């Protein structure tokens, strides 16, 4: 009896691996209080991101430092003439869950009187906050999430997408590599929304550049053992193997790709990679891998100077998400300055169509049609150990991809 019970217990545990859980989110409405030039006599910047999970290193608490830098720069620039005299930051952890993001966003807008919410990585969470921004009529600038839906079917008047999206990653990486001679591709992707999206975007971008996707291989998610998937992907003798996994799965894949003896033989392209990934695993494992970066700290003097300031405060180098948060916060404050008020509609009007060149955005433009912020991005390659001169000096920029080539035209599904 005892034995039977334990067998069923163990079987139950094993079967639970097949059960997926779904999260729902609900939108809430509420009044927006706009009085005077600056509501509540202060401007409150809300930072909502992952403070404890997979995206903590990429953005997390250090983005607060970046936003504070923007506030300091704004105050230094305008001094007594600053429209926003009192500026505060509030911060919360959404644990990458859309339901938590939704309630935290509500709290921020209503209780903390946040005038803007920034960052919000993880696509589902990012979209949940867009719904809140629309309902509360408050500004929201997303930096950390990749979904094109933010500026597509689910766009709204108050939502902006600042740093990158999946279409841009595909155009940058696939377009760049095919032009460089990597015509034949095998793509390996995790079989869930993000992976399927990435597979679609990459396939389209490869074909658009006159390359060919020989195989698209779906894998379970999460997955530890990729050995046979790699053998299969290699069987068509591709020039390039594209991997769309992220986090731990990406690390599993890269380690096993290298052990399959393919490093240096087949070009590895990673769909979504952050400098923090290279830092955690070491340049040896990633050497030669190509990917699209929205911003790199050691690209030029301007970036480096900013990265030095950032390092003084955090003892680490910034990722593109940190620089993106800085740029978004600074341009939001500039828009308040220009509008003379923090009223959301007035600020949105200032931002729409604005052309920006700053430390993060080169040839940047806040597209009025869909609020996608387009800018030059970079096809990067991971250096070899011998080429690394200092900590975090991991990337060489293969080429700059002009904004016009990097971003797709407004999708037409967006109606404000």
């Amino acid at each position, binding site marked *: 009896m*005892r*034995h*039977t*019970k*334990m*067998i069923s*217990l*163990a*079987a139950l*545990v*094993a*079967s*639970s*691996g*097949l059960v997926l859980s779904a999260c729902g989110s609900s939108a809430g409405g509420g009044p927006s209080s706009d009085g005077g030039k600056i509501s509540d006599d202060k401007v409150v910047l809300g930072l909502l991101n992952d403070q*404890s*999970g*997979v995206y*903590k*290193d990429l953005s997390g608490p250090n983005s607060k430092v970046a936003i504070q830098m923007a506030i300091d720069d704004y105050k230094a620039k305008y001094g007594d003439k600053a429209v926003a005299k009192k500026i505060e930051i509030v911060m919360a952890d959404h644990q990458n869950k859309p339901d938590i993001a939704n309630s935290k966003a509500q709290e921020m807008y209503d209780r903390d009187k946040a005038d803007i919410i920034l960052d919000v990585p993880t696509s589902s969470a990012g979209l949940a906050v867009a719904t809140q921004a629309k309902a509360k009529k408050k500004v929201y600038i997303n930096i950390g999430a990749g979904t094109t839906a933010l500026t597509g079917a689910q766009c709204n008047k108050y939502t902006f997408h600042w740093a990158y999206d999946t279409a841009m990653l595909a155009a940058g990486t696939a377009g760049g590599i095919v032009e460089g001679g990597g015509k034949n591709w095998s793509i390996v992707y995790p*079989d869930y929304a993000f992976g399927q999206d990435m597979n679609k975007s990459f396939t389209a971008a490869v074909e658009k550049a006159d390359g060919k996707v020989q195989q698209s*291989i*779906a*894998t*379970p998610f*999460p*997955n*530890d*053992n*990729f*050995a*046979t*998937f790699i*053998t*299969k992907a290699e*069987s068509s003798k591709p020039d390039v193997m594209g991997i769309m996994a992220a*986090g*731990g*799965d*990406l*690390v*599993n894949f890269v*380690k*096993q790709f290298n*052990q*399959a*003896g393919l490093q240096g033989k087949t070009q590895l392209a990673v769909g979504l990679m952050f400098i*923090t*990934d290279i*830092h*955690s*695993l*070491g340049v*040896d494992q990633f050497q030669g891998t190509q990917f699209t970066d929205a911003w790199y700290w050691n690209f030029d003097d301007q970036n480096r100077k900013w990265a030095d300031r950032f390092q003084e405060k955090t003892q680490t180098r910034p990722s593109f998400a940190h620089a993106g948060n800085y740029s978004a916060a600074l341009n939001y404050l500039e828009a308040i300055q220009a509008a003379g008020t923090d009223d959301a509609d007035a600020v949105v009007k200032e931002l729409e169509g604005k052309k920006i060149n700053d430390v993060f955005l080169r040839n940047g433009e806040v597209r009025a049609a869909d609020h996608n912020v387009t800018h030059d991005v970079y096809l990067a390659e991971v250096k070899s150990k011998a080429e690394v001169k200092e900590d975090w000096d991991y990337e060489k920029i293969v080429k700059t991809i002009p904004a016009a080539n990097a971003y797709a035209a407004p999708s037409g599904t967006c109606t404000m």
Partner: protein
Amino acid sequence: MTQFLQYTLQGLAAGGFYALAALGLAVIFGVLGVVNFSHGACYMLGAMISALLLQHFGLGFWPALVIVPVIMFVIGVLVERLLVQWLLKLDPLYNFLLTFGLTLLTVDIMKRQFGVSSLKYEVPAGLTGRVSFGSVDLSVYQMFAAAFAVLVCLAVWMILTKTRVGMIVRAATEDPERSRALGINVARWVTPVFGFGIALAGLSGVLAAPYRAINADMGTNFIIILFAIVVIGGLGSILGAVVAGFLVGLVEAYGQGYYGQLSQVLIFVLMAAVVLIRPAGLFGREEAA
């Protein structure tokens, strides 16, 4: 055909590793009757400790192969003495819940302490490169890991079935009352066996370090596959765990090769089929079930 042989070889290599990883689970269940949910967390600790030994003390793969199981043995003994032993007499559900709680605690503590990004670990020098068998080939490390794992499984099986110590342990756990009457100190044997099972989990963690992502979550998904293996093999059966480890490795490799995203589902289809036909698993004791 070459493709098929290649998949088979990869399946066998993965299977050897699975066999070792599931072995500790089987031993602990077979001897103590505890469904140890924390096995995945112990596997994770094994890999994390290896990476930390390398990072802080410059101790590489070979020393870790010895040091980590010792550390894990001590942890196992402490957990058994302080917690598990008090629940042994109760419904097995209690120890299952206890080890489940321990898992959550361990994973979160490790996340807090070492973050969520993967830690660095390289393939040990001397085990890099590939080895070919005619038209198919395999990474040297994967082969080493599989061969090493099979040897450990064999040794454990020998100890438990062919030695006096093994006999005492089995007697002490199968019929504690009568063993006590015969003068055997039952408690003295239960604790080291639990520690030993945990040490095996740690050892598989060390073996995983060079070719798996090392982070706090690495055991979370893995424990599910391990449970499938011990259910297929028959809970508590060492031979069962080894055979099922290879079976699952092969099913996964063929799944990856021919059915893509179904590769993990197939493992559970196999499990369901086995449980339907032989509820006690392939090598489980039918009369007990």
